[in-house]
């Protein structure tokens, strides 16, 4: 008990929590935007890989760090546009299209990496974002500007969703596209816009990994974080504020298991601790399943004039 309290009082733990949460916040907000408009986006895992790679590559080529973030967002938007074309335009299965995009984005990134760096054994590095030491706020000062951006995005997304006409249109096409269409909202435009914007956020989530958390690109670096975001959105019942809370809670458990593993108090094989994030995601899905208020039109393709 004493040891646990000491652990909780440890600033390093909370610094780790916020760092682990950052890509989850970006990704979860991205999934949330897509799903609120009625589109499941299982492309997230691959889009994060592609964002991590292209953002890093741009910085490696000598571009400024923020340009790298913009490139990652652009990459995400391109894959989002593809997903929107397939699922909103052509009304193909959202499951299958998303998985196809994950596989395509991942394999394209691996291919591009190998073509760009044919014979490297140690991955080349860039100079990542520095912590905002001048800020003077404990814990937050140890983070990079991307974490601040992620935190600020939560109220921005909430405001966009609930306080702007565009947000209203977005939520409408996710609940009842027929009604939205009769109100003069273009389902195609609203859904596509949401998917493209959401996917751009997923790209940034990936870029955080290569430009802030680490300084290089590794093939398996996303490692299921995208799928965890998909689970977190259900856990958050599609609300930005709860998404932040969910991401932080999740990151807390992840940081805790890292600590336990390092402190030597770990009595179980290390793999058991690594399993925790995935097991927690499943648990979260099961716990909220009964009262999950899915957007009514989620995964339902909309074809004009067809029911």
């Amino acid at each position: 008990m004493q040891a646990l309290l000491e652990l909780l009082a440890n600033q390093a733990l909370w610094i780790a929590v916020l760092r682990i949460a950052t890509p989850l916040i970006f990704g979860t907000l991205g999934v949330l935007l897509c799903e609120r408009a009625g589109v499941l986006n299982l492309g997230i895992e691959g889009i994060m890989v592609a964002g991590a790679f292209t953002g890093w590559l741009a910085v490696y080529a000598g571009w400024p760090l923020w340009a790298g973030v913009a490139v990652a967002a652009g990459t995400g938007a391109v894959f989002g546009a593809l997903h929107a074309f397939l699922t909103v335009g052509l009304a193909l299965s959202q499951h299958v299209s998303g998985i196809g995009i994950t596989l395509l984005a991942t394999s394209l990134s691996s291919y591009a990496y190998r073509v760009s760096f044919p014979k490297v054994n140690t991955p080349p590095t860039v100079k990542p974002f520095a912590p905002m030491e001048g800020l003077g706020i404990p814990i937050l000062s140890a983070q990079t500007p991307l974490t601040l951006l992620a935190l600020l995005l939560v109220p921005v997304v909430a405001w966009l969703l609930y306080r702007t006409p565009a947000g209203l249109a977005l939520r409408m096409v996710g609940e009842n596209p027929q009604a939205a269409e009769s109100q003069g909202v273009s389902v195609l435009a609203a859904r596509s816009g949401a998917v493209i914007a959401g996917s751009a956020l997923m790209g940034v989530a990936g870029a955080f990994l290569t430009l802030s958390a680490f300084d290089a690109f590794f093939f398996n670096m996303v490692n299921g974080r995208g799928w965890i975001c998909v689970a977190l959105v259900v856990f958050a019942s599609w609300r930005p504020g709860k998404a932040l809370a969910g991401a932080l809670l999740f990151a807390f458990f992840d940081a805790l298991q890292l600590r336990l593993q390092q402190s030597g108090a770990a009595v179980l094989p290390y793999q058991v601790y690594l399993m925790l994030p995935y097991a927690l995601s499943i648990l979260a899905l099961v716990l909220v399943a009964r009262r999950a208020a899915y957007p009514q039109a989620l995964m339902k393709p909309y074809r004009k004039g067809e029911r």
Partner: protein
Amino acid sequence: MRLEKRPAISPLALTLAPIGAIAFTLLVSSLLVLWAGAPVAPTWAALVKGGFGSLFAWTETLTRATPLILTGLAAAVAFRARLFNIGAEGQLYAGALAAVAVGGLHGGTGFDLPSALLLPLMFLAAALAGALLLLGPALLKARLGVDEVVTTLLLNFIVLLAVSALLDGPMKDPGAMGWPQSVALQQGLELSKLVQGTRVHSGLLLACGLAVLLWAVFKYTVFGFDLRALGANPRAAAFAGVPPLRTLAGVAIVSGGLAGLAGAIEVAGRTGYVTLDMSPGYGYSGIVIAMLAGLHPLALLAAAVFVAGVLVGADSMSRVIGVPTYIADVIVSASLIAVLVATLLAQYRLRWR
């Protein structure tokens, strides 16, 4: 942009659509080959030669196709009932592990049973392990509405970590000089080779047989009708007397069982033990294969051979020309998207206003 159903859907167009889509994919991938600084025609020639150009190439391709057929069937049967099983990768490893648990040496002589009994037991255990792994997510979907895509995906990570822990601990082969590798299979449990001196084994016949069996099940049995009805419209299916829970559980057992079997067949036919890298994503490729084949078990055989040939051919092409092997994964995943679009366009007309 809107879609308009074509008044008459030509079966010829539906058949040609996948072929055209794959040709289109190769055309686009040629740009990637050019980017790598390699000549396009020799690269494709080397890929085709490496995958299909000789007896050895064919045996390698068919060896690679064997687990892909099984994971493809696993995806096809589940997707038909709209149970999106993305967990074949984990189910494959669970099956492989169950196979060595039953048929392994365990540092001694293993179970003292005749091979004729142990071999079917081994396959049964593998199928059971895969089936149980999918039954959980299927029941969660049926009872609580938990999306099975995310649960099966996350289970893949959990299973792989569990395999890793077991290969470090209780299942570790003490004779493997520290490599994380499971205990080896007993002698007499290996599947026989189809062509002497190559790796292609009788597991291929089993996989093909199961594809034919599944085709017959889809076409001629009540279960086949039930799962199709469940996939088309769950509410109407329930109204028509299809038991939703029982059908979904049955689908999960068949689908997970097939993926588990893929793991056992890899162990008995090729590796002899379990390692963490025994599957280069067979579970995920199976999904692509099932979609390429339009979820048809017999077309799936062709799709599996195509994908296996591209993967094997890319390995050998990469050795000769130096274009990264990842080009194979790009071709396969881009084909998936292109085939989906082409099949749709064979049925619908696209109007741009």
